[in-house]
């Protein structure tokens, strides 16, 4: 059991360790670089000293007497023969030294100025908080460092220069760490605050180390290899370097060695201590392992992606999870997940035995090793027993209230399902388990959108919640059905896709009629068994009536289909989607009604009904769509993009007309008759005109293709239902690809005055500047093909460069905004109550609970008045 938290941490403060504290917290002084003696026993006074904690099981700590897991480890210390700088405090040391007098230790500014700064600092602290004080300190330092004579003792001041990485010079004379300590000791506590240091946080002379704390062995455990050889941690290596150098320095000092040797050793000690703290300081060669690999010292343990924060604290490895390739299964429910048997027989759910489930759990134990079964049994005193053929009988007898049985994953269990990158709330949702044969995780097609998944080899992760609380939370907050409407734009993100849409479109198109057998067959596939259908004299029923059977009985809706064109007079029954009391009276069902990211009808259903109902309605719609396609057949043909000969001729002549329009525009430009548009040069006007003419040409081709295609053209059905593709794609196949545009202009770079050598220099005509007058099906001419390749490559490059950039940008945005919250008065605030926005989104609307981002007051009034 976890310990009960009795105290709350109010605040944490970081201070500089004083030599005194270092000595007090240490249990041993390290004096020898050797780790083990000849027998492999840790050396007394060595770095693997038994007093500093235990890492081997069975041994007891020499300091506290506790065993491996209970002993937290104890610090030691190294007494440095000569002081060295702590590299991470370099800036503080530098600032303190250069702004104070070397003789009297006072800040080199006259009293008046200092007094002014003191007042200013107090003001800033009151008005803008502790952190802003640093700006004043910066100003003080930048002014004090330029003073030539100390205003207090009259000492002439030399300019202190920092020679990277860590030596200081005063006019070619080296300032040693000993001198630094001496000078820093003189700085008064009151002055520290002005230099940006908190006197309570420690004295600046402590930043020049005389004692080095040695972290306990538990921080740097050694690993025993299979060969019995011991491999030491990087930190231990580094520490033994420090001890060795220190020892040599000490000996040389005692022997009275020449100054040069002493200085060399001192520098070496400084290098080792520096790399012990951080091994990637610029201008210092990183300390390397014998193999040549840079050592991972203290800073690297904490920093960056592989460091403690991002690797171990912000992200952790977990148990009770599974990962596999995903594949689609339209026949499982929307909030189900198909789990392979191999996963189900390994993943477990703990179940506490009580009088209601004991029989069932006994059955599971009996069933072992066949699925579903129990894998482990925990008795009340916490003993774990594996269920085997031998232990079965005993366990069955023993089992009683309060035991915990770990049973395998079963149909109906709640699991969390996730696909990376998790950019969304909907990237992790709760699903119900459905154990299925096979090796992939199966998902319903409608939930691919929230995960942004497809089936070209995507893997997804599954997690099994282990407590009742976790399951309840997942069920209430994360269930797929609760996530249908996205908080991004207030429309369903889970909805019909691809075949569902093509199917529903064919089903509900005006004039689609079905026999009795067909109708009931379709509805049975959609799991509707009690539909009340009205058949006409010929015994037929319309597709719209069949669709009505999957709608809620009291449902009303009015909206537009994709076929609706504003202002068009000849309205067919497909334009306006109208549902009254659960009957689809008019309108074809397409992506505008039920599609994911678009479907308004679906949004209305999700808003009005509870989640089980919404789930069934959506599931039925999807199934009905698929069933229709299965019955009717749906094939995309090469001939879908065929056109009759005369239409082809028509297209050709239309293109010809456009090109001659372009030519006449060029002629008027060359003769100077053209009048420029406001704010444009003549040349720009011409380009604009030509692009307009050629775009119009492509649109004309598009409408010609559409008007001449047969009704049961599956490519067109796909485009119009919103399942896949659009009319432009079809026009480009059957008719003409059209003008190639690069960064908003016609192609113009290449050779001198022309894109390709096949044209004359300065040719402004359509063909010379990237107009493709053929379609993909009839084939492009070599020059057209090249033009097309130019724009294709540009598009490819653009996407491949933009995706990672925008991903990183999004990550930074999320990190910056993650702690903001909307409080009760609808203002957006940071964690300390600072106002970011006075009204959330400037309108105070929760998009996830709105109608596509706004509140439709008229609709609400209408609904209320109807009631």
């Amino acid at each position, binding site marked *: 059991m976890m310990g009960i938290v009795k105290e709350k941490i109010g605040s944490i403060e970081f201070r500089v360790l004083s030599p005194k504290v270092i000595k007090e917290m240490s249990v041993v002084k390290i004096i020898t670089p050797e780790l083990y003696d000849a027998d492999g026993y840790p050396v007394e006074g060595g770095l693997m000293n038994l007093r500093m904690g235990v890492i081997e099981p069975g041994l007891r700590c020499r300091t506290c007497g506790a065993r491996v897991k209970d002993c937290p480890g104890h610090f030691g210390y190294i007494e440095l023969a000569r002081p060295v700088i702590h590299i991470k405090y370099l800036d503080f040391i530098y600032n303190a030294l250069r702004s104070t007098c070397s003789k009297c230790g006072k800040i080199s500014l006259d009293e008046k100025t200092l007094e002014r700064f003191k007042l200013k600092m107090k003001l800033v602290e009151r008005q803008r908080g502790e952190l802003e004080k640093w700006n004043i300190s910066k100003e003080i330092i930048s002014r004090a460092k330029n003073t030539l004579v100390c205003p207090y003792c009259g000492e002439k001041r030399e300019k202190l220069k920092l020679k990277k990485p860590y030596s200081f010079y005063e006019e070619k004379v080296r300032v040693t760490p000993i001198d630094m300590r001496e000078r820093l000791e003189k700085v008064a506590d009151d002055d520290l605050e002005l230099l940006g240091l908190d006197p309570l946080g420690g004295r600046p002379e402590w930043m020049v180390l005389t004692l080095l704390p040695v972290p306990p062995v538990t921080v740097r455990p050694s690993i025993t290899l299979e060969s019995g050889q011991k491999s030491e941690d990087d930190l231990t290596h580094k520490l033994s370097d420090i001890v060795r150098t220190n020892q040599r320095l000490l000996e040389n000092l005692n022997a009275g060695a020449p100054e040069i040797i002493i200085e060399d050793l001192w520098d070496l000690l400084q290098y080792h201590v520096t790399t012990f703290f951080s091994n990637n300081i610029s201008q210092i060669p990183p300390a390397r392992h014998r193999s040549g690999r840079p050592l991972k010292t203290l800073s690297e343990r904490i920093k960056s992606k592989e460091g403690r924060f991002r690797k171990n604290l912000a992200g952790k490895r977990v148990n009770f999870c599974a990962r596999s390739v995903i594949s689609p299964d339209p026949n499982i429910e929307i909030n189900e997940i198909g789990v392979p048997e191999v996963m189900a027989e390994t993943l477990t759910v703990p179940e506490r035995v009580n009088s209601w489930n004991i029989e069932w759990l006994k059955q599971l134990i009996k069933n072992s090793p066949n699925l579903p079964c129990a894998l482990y049994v925990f008795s009340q005193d916490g003993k774990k027993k594996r269920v085997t053929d031998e232990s079965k009988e005993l366990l069955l007898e023993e089992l009683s209230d309060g035991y915990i049985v770990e049973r395998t994953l079963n149909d109906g269990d709640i699991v969390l399902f996730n696909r990376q990158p998790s950019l969304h709330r909907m990237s992790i949702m709760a699903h119900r388990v459905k154990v299925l044969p096979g090796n992939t995780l199966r998902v319903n097609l409608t939930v691919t959108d929230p995960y942004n998944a497809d089936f070209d080899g995507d893997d997804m992760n599954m997690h099994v919640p282990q407590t009742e609380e976790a399951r309840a939370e997942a069920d209430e907050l994360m269930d797929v059905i609760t996530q249908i409407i996205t908080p991004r734009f207030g429309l369903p993100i889970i909805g019909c896709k691809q075949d569902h849409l093509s199917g529903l479109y064919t089903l509900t198109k005006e004039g689609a009629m079905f026999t009795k057998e067909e109708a009931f067959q379709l509805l049975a596939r959609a799991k509707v068994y009690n539909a009340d259908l009205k058949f006409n004299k010929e015994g037929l029923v319309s597709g719209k009536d069949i669709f009505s059977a999957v709608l809620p009985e009291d449902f009303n809706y009015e909206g537009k289909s994709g076929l609706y064109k504003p202002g068009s007079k000849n309205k067919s029954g497909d334009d306006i989607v109208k549902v009254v009391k659960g009957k689809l009276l008019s309108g074809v069902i397409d992506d505008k009604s039920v599609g994911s990211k678009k479907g308004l009808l679906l949004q209305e259903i999700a808003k009005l009904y509870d989640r089980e109902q919404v789930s069934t309605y959506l599931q039925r719609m999807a199934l009905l769509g698929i069933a229709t396609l299965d019955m009717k057949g749906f094939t995309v043909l090469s001939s879908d993009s065929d056109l009759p000969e005369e239409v082809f001729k028509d297209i050709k002549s239309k293109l010809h007309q456009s090109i001659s329009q372009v030519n006449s525009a060029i002629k008027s430009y060359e003769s100077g008759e053209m009048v420029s548009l406001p704010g444009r040069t003549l040349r720009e006007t011409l380009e604009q005109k030509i692009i307009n003419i050629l775009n119009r040409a492509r649109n004309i081709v598009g409408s010609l293709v559409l008007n001449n295609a047969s009704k049961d053209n599956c490519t067109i059905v796909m485009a119009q239902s919103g399942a896949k593709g659009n009319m432009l794609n079809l026009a480009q196949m059957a008719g003409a690809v059209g003008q190639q545009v690069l960064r908003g202009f016609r192609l113009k770079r290449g050779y001198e005055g022309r894109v390709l050598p096949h044209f004359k220099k300065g040719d402004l005509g359509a063909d010379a500047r990237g107009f493709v007058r053929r379609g993909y099906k009839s084939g492009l001419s070599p020059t057209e093909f090249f033009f097309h390749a130019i724009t294709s490559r540009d598009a490819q490059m653009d996407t491949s460069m933009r995706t990672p950039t925008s991903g990183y940008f999004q990550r930074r945005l999320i990190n910056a905004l993650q702690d903001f919250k909307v409080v009760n008065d609808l203002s957006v605030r940071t964690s300390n109550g*600072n*106002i970011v926005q006075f009204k959330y989104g400037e309108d105070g609307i929760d998009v996830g609970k709105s109608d596509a981002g706004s509140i439709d007051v008229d609709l609400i009034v209408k609904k209320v008045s109807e009631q």
Partner: protein
Amino acid sequence: MAEEKKPEKTEKSKLNEQILEHSYNPKFEILKPEEVKALLERFNAKIIQLPKININDPICKLMSAKVNDVFKITRKSYTSEDSVFYRVVVDG
């Protein structure tokens, strides 16, 4: 010299007035002390919790705002008709 400088100044302030009236420039007003009090009460906030604007910002100079004055800024919004924002003038 003095004669030459004067017309230039008026020219400049005229230009500044025009800037304030430009449609791209949102409407700025300085709140009265009692309005500031009401605002802070409404949002249950301290004055330092409001969004800030630097005293050296051109708009502060144009409207001769002082430290701790609160601007009411009315902007056009994509999501609603007008959005109201408040910023407190700070030094440095």
